């Protein structure tokens, strides 16, 4: 076990760290944006949409992320090249990369888990507040923007940190579809040095540190948001 060899691989490790962070941030932000309508329609209806959103959450939460990623990467990935206009579109360089499929799978996964949470949050905003907002003559969209969403967000905020950490811990799966994020970088270092423990223990420590940072960050954000 010689940890000094890792110094030679510093650029690779930093690149891996960058990809892990980008994957995490992209999937959490877009996943959360998707989760808002998914949660909302389950409370407001119409029925078919509510059913669809509920089914989406169940499927995402009931199947392994690894399988979801493989369906997208191998399934969609093997379908796309057969469609000429996709092959010749400007998006093709992106659609060829494992990164795109990993980001897509993680976004949908976060949307599924967070959609179920947002449903509960939207449902638990006191009815009186929404009625008051309507009595003020606010349009449905204004009610959502000014009252319903901010209140729901305040309710989910304490759980959001934990969900983000779970999402971080899911990112190494991206290495299985050729994305060189932290774990992928560790794998590359292992294959070129044939020494298992230095790279693997190092990335384990980095994940540990990232978890700690996320916890602190969300604690900080929570203190900034007024309780009432």
């Amino acid at each position, binding site marked *: 076990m010689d940890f000094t060899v890792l110094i030679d691989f510093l650029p690779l490790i930093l690149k891996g760290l960058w990809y892990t962070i980008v994957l995490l941030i992209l999937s959490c932000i877009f996943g959360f944006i998707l989760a808002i309508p998914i949660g909302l329609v389950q409370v407001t209806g119409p029925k078919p949409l509510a059913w669809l959103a509920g089914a989406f959450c169940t499927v995402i939460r*009931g199947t392994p992320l690894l399988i979801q990623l493989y369906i997208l990467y191998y399934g969609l990935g093997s379908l796309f090249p057969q469609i000429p206009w996709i092959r010749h579109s400007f998006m093709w360089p992106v659609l060829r990369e494992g990164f795109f499929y990993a980001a897509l799978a993680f976004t949908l996964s976060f949307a599924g888990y967070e959609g179920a949470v947002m449903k509960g949050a939207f449902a638990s905003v006191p009815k009186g507040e929404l009625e008051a907002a309507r009595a003020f003559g606010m349009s449905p969209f204004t009610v959502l923007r000014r009252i319903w969403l901010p209140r729901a967000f305040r309710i989910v905020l304490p759980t959001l940190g934990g969900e983000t950490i779970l999402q971080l811990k899911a990112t190494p799966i991206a290495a299985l579809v050729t994305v060189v994020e932290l774990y992928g970088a560790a794998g590359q270092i292992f294959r070129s040095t044939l020494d*298992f423990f230095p790279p693997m223990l190092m990335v384990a420590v980095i994940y540990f540190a990232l978890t700690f940072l996320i916890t602190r960050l969300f604690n900080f954000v929570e203190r900034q948001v007024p309780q009432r």
Partner: protein
Amino acid sequence: MGWTDLLAWNPPGWGSPIFRGVITTLQISFCAYALGLLIGLLGARGKLSGGKLTKRLLEGYTTIVRSVPELLLIVILFYTGTQGFNSLLAAFGLGPVRINGFVAAVAVLGVVQGAYSTEVLRGAIKAIPVGQIEAARAYGMSPFLMFRRITLPAMLPYAIPGLSNLWLTATKGSALISVVGYVELTKITQQAAGGTKWYFTFYTTAAVLYLVISLISLQGFGMLDRYVRRGQPKVG
């Protein structure tokens, strides 16, 4: 070839290997879950009533396992386990053996599950009103009798939701075992999809099978939850 041919029971259909994959996945998940519960029970006990050193060690175990990605843990534990076991054999002058993949998979997943179980069970035991435990002690119950008659039935209502989540994590987490090469549902699906190039069909089939496992498990835990809550006042 349509999907009915691909999923036919007999070769060249993949029905029978996929079915065996489902069985293996269930076996791995169940054994890992049971091992996790055992570790969790001991861990929770240690965390609640152990000495200072025991508490420190258990705190380290649960914190590290819960903040490092499962995939990375599985790979590290698998490698450490197989290497360590063989160097132990070498120390006794024995040659290396091939580690049984099933045992390794269960051990690795079980150690990961154990950390989460420890926290779930610790929380559940702590939620039992102190008076009930004191009353049991006052009756002169032995620790084992007290566990069987009081602690276990009293903590289950608090523990079941967490344990239900853990079981779902175990079944879904077992898919990661495919990475270290053990043939369960995900690995056999990879082989089928790679061999036939029918990726969509096979991965979707696997997803449906995992979903069925999850949905049936949820029903089961729902029934269990109602059973352990019998006699409790309804909340809400």
